[in-house]
């Protein structure tokens, strides 16, 4: 029998293989635009099992204010719990807001920025916050943010660069004592984990807390969906801003890798040129106990090689050849990059003015060459060339960007997080505060 032509065969295969609509899909209701333009929340008879779904579209929220942190609740809320007495805003970079009842227990959690949605879509995590004490909930969120890579577990912080988070407890009543408890719980958590984090905490006593609480109770848990419900333009702007944030993060990471290689090379050079190192042996072959200088340099080089391996998968820890091979390959891959221009871009910030538009094609070419991230390249091309215009595309792309970024952060730092860390003592923490100018 004569073999079908390729397209004929493809046609036949697709006819046979494309699945019939499942009963579950048939029963799934369609979310429609209600009269007046506001979307009705969906009643999911059979929630989708695999992909995390964006949460229901929101109603407006005052939001703004500096700190937000909260757990995120999915559609389900509206429970008859006691009236919330306050709002706790937690800002790490994921920004969330928690409403609290009269006993300082969590009622509802809402995302206040795009990164907050990465936490907000985990319904199990959100459910674990409801009913817990505000201080415990704050620690759970801090823990989640640590696992998600939002805090760097290495380093002891400098005046220029340190981990920080900000909490604000806004209530109609005096809450200094409760705020102190929340701050204390967070500092204790971070010190126990051996991670230097500055925790800034503020209390606000104002009748407007009641209105803010009500607004939070009535809006969507997902920030992106809430913005999308306002207007396509606002969602476009949010998507662009999130893409720019991601771009900036990738650039910082790429520059860190570039500098890490340079620092390891410098340490090796210092070892080789030590006066007691008569044969000029490198880090991998020198006797580390030759003198204190070499011992110190070798310890530092070992630490940086460990970071290079954990963050970027380049294993030059035990072999000069392995390191040199990887180093040469990396150098070749970035040889044509204008690194000074990229440092300047990182300092100025990535935004529409510095990165968007036709006039910055050269900037983007240099950037993508250096960073080489395909996911962002694809999304960025669509956004910055204006071809992604439909709201549903933006929501989908933004959701993907947020989850990609959360995943990338988590993957990048998971190795470092697994390294053993000593708890931070009180004196060391006070010294950290002095170092960063907060004591």
């Amino acid at each position, binding site marked *: 029998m004569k073999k079908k*032509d390729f397209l004929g065969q*493809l046609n036949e295969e697709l006819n046979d293989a494309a699945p019939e609509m499942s009963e579950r*899909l048939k029963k799934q209701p*369609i979310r429609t635009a209600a009269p007046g333009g506001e979307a009705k929340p969906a009643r*999911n008879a059979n929630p989708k099992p695999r992909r995390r779904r964006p949460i229901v579209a929101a109603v407006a929220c005052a939001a703004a204010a500096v700190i937000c942190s909260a757990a995120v609740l999915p559609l389900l809320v509206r429970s008859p719990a006691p009236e919330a007495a306050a709002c706790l805003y937690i800002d790490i970079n994921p920004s969330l807001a928690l409403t609290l009842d009269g006993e300082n227990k969590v009622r509802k959690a809402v995302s206040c920025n795009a990164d907050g949605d990465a936490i907000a879509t985990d319904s199990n995590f959100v459910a674990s916050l409801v009913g817990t004490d505000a201080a415990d909930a704050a620690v759970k969120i801090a823990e989640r943010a640590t696992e998600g890579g939002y805090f760097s577990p290495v380093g002891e912080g400098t005046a220029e660069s340190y981990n920080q988070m900000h909490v604000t407890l806004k209530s109609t009543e005096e809450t200094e004592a409760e705020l102190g408890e929340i701050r204390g719980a967070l500092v204790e958590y971070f010190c126990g984990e051996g991670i230097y984090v500055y925790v800034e905490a503020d209390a606000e006593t104002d009748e407007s807390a009641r209105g803010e609480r009500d607004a939070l109770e009535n809006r969507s848990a997902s920030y992106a969906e809430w913005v999308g419900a306002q207007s396509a333009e606002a969602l476009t702007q949010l998507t662009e801003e999130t893409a720019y944030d991601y771009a900036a993060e990738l650039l910082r990471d790429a520059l860190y890798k570039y500098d890490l290689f340079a620092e390891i090379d410098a340490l090796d050079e210092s070892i080789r040129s030590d006066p007691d190192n008569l044969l000029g042996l490198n880090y991998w072959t020198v006797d580390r106990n030759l003198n204190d200088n070499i011992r110190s340099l070798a310890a530092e080089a070992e630490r940086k090689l460990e970071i290079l391996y954990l963050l970027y998968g380049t294993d030059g820890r035990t072999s000069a050849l392995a390191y040199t091979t990887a180093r040469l390959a990396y150098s070749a891959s970035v040889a044509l990059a204008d690194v000074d221009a990229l440092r300047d871009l990182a300092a100025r910030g990535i935004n529409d003015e510095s990165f968007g538009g036709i006039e910055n094609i050269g900037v983007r070419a240099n950037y993508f060459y250096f960073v080489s991230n395909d996911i962002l390249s694809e999304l960025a091309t669509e956004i910055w060339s204006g071809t992604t*215009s*439909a*709201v549903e595309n933006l929501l*989908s792309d933004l959701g993907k960007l947020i989850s*990609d970024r959360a995943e990338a952060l988590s993957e990048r730092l998971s190795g470092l997080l697994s390294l053993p860390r000593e708890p931070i003592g009180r004196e060391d923490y006070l010294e950290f505060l002095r170092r960063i100018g907060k004591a």
Partner: protein
Amino acid sequence: MGEGYIRDTMNKKQIDELMTKVAAGDNAAFARLYEETKRGVYAFAYSYLGNSADAEDVTEEVYFSVKSKAYQYRAGTDARAWLFQIAKNLSLDELRRRKRRPDPLDALPGEPAEAPRLPALDLMTKTLGETEREIVLLHAVWGYKHREIARMTGLPLGTVTWKYKTALEKLRREWEAED
């Protein structure tokens, strides 16, 4: 090897009309939309994931997504492109999930599950690069014109036309060699 579409696909206007009805809650329109577009969605998912089970899962997820976001659809925009983008995003999500978990089938002893034989889809997945596959599927299965594909992908029209031609030549050679 035949050129052009595999069959008479619905055009952009017809799909848009269906999607507009879906956005208004018309389940019959959704069922029709499903029948008209499922092959394209499945083909796309398969081309990324390489097996029918995952492709079926992602296909279903695409349409769940359509139902949950139907109210956001604006009449007059390109519903096919919307479906295509959702399928692409979900396929990429699945690929990333795979990287983070071991294949459960690897852990099970015994015979692997019976999977349908899809030699043309497998050949396309194996032979073509991502961009070539996308262009072939958009033109031959989804019914997009080359100019429309150029606009969607950001590639010059000449590049799209050339890539489609060379992709089909590759497929023809490999297909005949398998005889």
